[in-house]
């Protein structure tokens, strides 16, 4: 069965690729279509120029050693080797990974709960939805600074609560680990509404009659959720997780504003290397490429793993 599908897919892929070329050929024979291509060309060029070129250039630069007053020299993968052996970089990767996993999982769990609750019709649904979005509407830097005040040892409410609950012995912001978890809390507080809204949009397009049919067949609430809601929500989940994961993976402003430039993430590592340091430009650039490539992989995983079936079918 699987073999058959694979074969069919391969067979259908080949003529399709040939089709692109022959279609292009055909299109160019047609004057009207040819004009259309010419008219699109400038935009296409612009996209290549501002999208592809800087990325390619950054990748190219990451193979050079660039120092002040020195001609750049080609060093192959040395920048990447240096980068991976830099303990600061490894710390940044670890911080970013922990932050991404924790915040995305928590936001998804809370988000789907809120979306399900909001999806039930009740009085004042519209205003509740609007109110739930308030934290998301705050600029990240503003909420980060606001939460920093609450985490601060001198008069911060969160610091007080953490102390009373015996969660932490010392000041929150003086411990790197505690600051990282504090940042996760802020991100969950801020971005859960956004996830909920995306999922809610997904929920609202699920036809009500599917549930009706399920009830007629005797499905209980859990079965309805796991067999109907979740599968039909998959595209929305894929989009929400993709957005959030990529966003969390490149976290910058939240970390630096909340920790006062002490908590290191991948993006802050890039900034320090490229903007502050004079000798580590190459490492910063390599790290930027690393973020780009890992983001591509993450996007690929989410689209392949969760999205394509339903979106491809549609």
């Amino acid at each position, binding site marked *: 069965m699987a073999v058959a599908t694979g074969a069919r897919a391969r067979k259908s892929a080949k003529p399709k690729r040939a089709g692109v070329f022959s279609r292009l050929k055909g299109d160019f024979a047609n004057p009207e279509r040819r004009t259309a291509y010419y008219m699109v060309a400038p935009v296409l060029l612009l996209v290549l*120029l*501002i999208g592809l*070129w*800087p*990325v390619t*250039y*950054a990748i190219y*630069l990451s193979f050079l050693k*660039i*120092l*002040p*007053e*020195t*001609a*750049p020299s080609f060093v192959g993968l040395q920048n990447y080797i240096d980068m991976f052996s830099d303990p*600061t970089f490894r710390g940044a990767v670890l911080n970013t990974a922990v932050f991404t996993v924790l915040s995305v999982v928590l936001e998804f769990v809370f988000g789907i709960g809120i979306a399900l609750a909001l999806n039930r019709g009740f009085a004042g649904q519209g205003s509740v939805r609007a109110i739930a979005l308030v934290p998301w509407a705050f600029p990240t830097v503003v909420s980060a600074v606001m939460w920093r005040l609450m985490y*601060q*040892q*001198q008069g911060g409410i969160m610091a007080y609560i953490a102390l009373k609950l015996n969660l932490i012995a*010392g*000041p929150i*912001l*003086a*411990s*790197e680990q505690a600051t990282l978890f504090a940042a996760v809390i802020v991100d969950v507080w801020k971005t859960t509404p956004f996830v909920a809204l995306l999922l809610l949009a997904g929920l609202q397009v699920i036809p009500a009659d599917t549930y009706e049919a399920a009830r007629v067949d005797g499905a209980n609430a859990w079965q309805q959720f796991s067999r109907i809601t979740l599968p039909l929500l998959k595209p929305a989940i894929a989009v929400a997780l993709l957005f959030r994961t990529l966003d969390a993976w490149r976290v910058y402003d939240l970390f630096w504003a909340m920790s*006062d*430039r*002490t908590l290191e993430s991948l993006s802050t590592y*890039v*900034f*320090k290397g*490229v*903007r*502050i*340091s*004079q*000798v*580590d*430009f*190459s490492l910063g*650039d390599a790290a*930027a*490429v690393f973020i*780009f490539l890992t983001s591509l992989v993450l996007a690929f995983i989410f689209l392949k793993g969760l999205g394509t079936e339903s979106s491809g079918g549609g």
Partner: protein
Amino acid sequence: MTARIGNGRSRAVTRRKFLKTTGAGVAGATLLGTGACAGFTPSVEGSAGTLVFTHGPDDSGNKTKWIDKFNEEQKGKIVVEYREMPADTGQYFDKMRTEFQAGGGTTDVIGGDVIWPAQFAANGWIMELSEVFTEERQADFLEGPLASGKFEGGIYGVPWYADAGMLWYRRDLLKKSGFDDPPETWDELMEIAAKVQSESGLLYGYVGQGSEYEGGVCNGCEFVWNGGGEILDPNDPTNIIIDSPESLRGLEAEALLVSEGITPLAMATYKETESLTAFKNQDAVFLRNWPYTYAEIGDPATGSTFDPKTVYDQVGVAAIPVSETGSKSFRCLGGWSFLINNFSTKKEQAWEFIQYMTSPEAREFFAINESNLPPEKSFYEDKALLKKQPLLEVAGAAVAATKPRPVHRFYSDMSLKMAEEYNESLKGETEPQDAIVTLQDQLSRIAQTKTG
């Protein structure tokens, strides 16, 4: 006036040179960076007689007032335009560096941080001044501020005003607990702080700046120096010598303050404001802070809980403690210097302006109105001036014992590493010994970076 214009360096910035000197822009912004750069020839904005001077915000308006006077005197010849820069020295530095990388920028005179001259001079961005700022003229200057402007045998900065780390202490409470004199060593400080804390019921014994930023570097360097250690070999800028028992002793003293409970662990997040607030709230026995503390503690409008009438009897100033009795106490040098843009077309006028800003009248004006500490010795012996600005009397000894942070072309890289390690060692997340070894290793890598 015969200031030689230029030093033969080419002014046009080629793409290759741009890459060489800067390392291009952010990956994403590379396009913008090079785009803006290609074919950019430095030019000076405004009319022929306009001299652009950059410095941080002029909150009190005194700087503008003094510059206006200059403009009045020089009417028809030079007009100085004061261009305000960010108050944050890191942002200001970044802005200047970007301007230079883009081909020289539009500034003529820079009022720059004392840690900048070496970094700018190494790239040929600022002018060597020994022809006009002669050794004879340098004679009256204090050693620390002057040293910050020197790089590879040349002099690039004219000190404007100096800042120095100082130990502020509660003279009244020390006396109450039976101590007539401030501590000379860290051991004494811990003993005094513990006794005063318990007898007078104060929250903290000692507070300073421990956050991971430039101020934390200043505090950390003071601990290293006052332990008897040194960071950069003064005779060889490629040689890092921080890995020594003396440096270790210094950092251990700092870590001990925290582990003994004399200093709150929260000091690892303190900048100037937090530490000064603790002192102004009368929560701390000792405070390490800059000279501006003097005005702040006496002004209830800043939130000080001291009585302005008695505060200067209650609070005293002492040398920053050392690890071993009798060794010299160093205080980290802060402050600002005048630098001339090497790409400027008005270097003679620029020098004229600097002379005006560093004249005895200007020194007095800024000392009295801005509490700026003059970088020349003679002012601290001027009885009439001391009467008008008592801070000079209080801070004189501190300014005379200042030491610049490592003067190196890659100082900003060194600062990043020091900020991180000093902070972690203070928090106890890294043992002082490990912090020293890491710094020896990482600073050496930076210092030995081959260029040219």
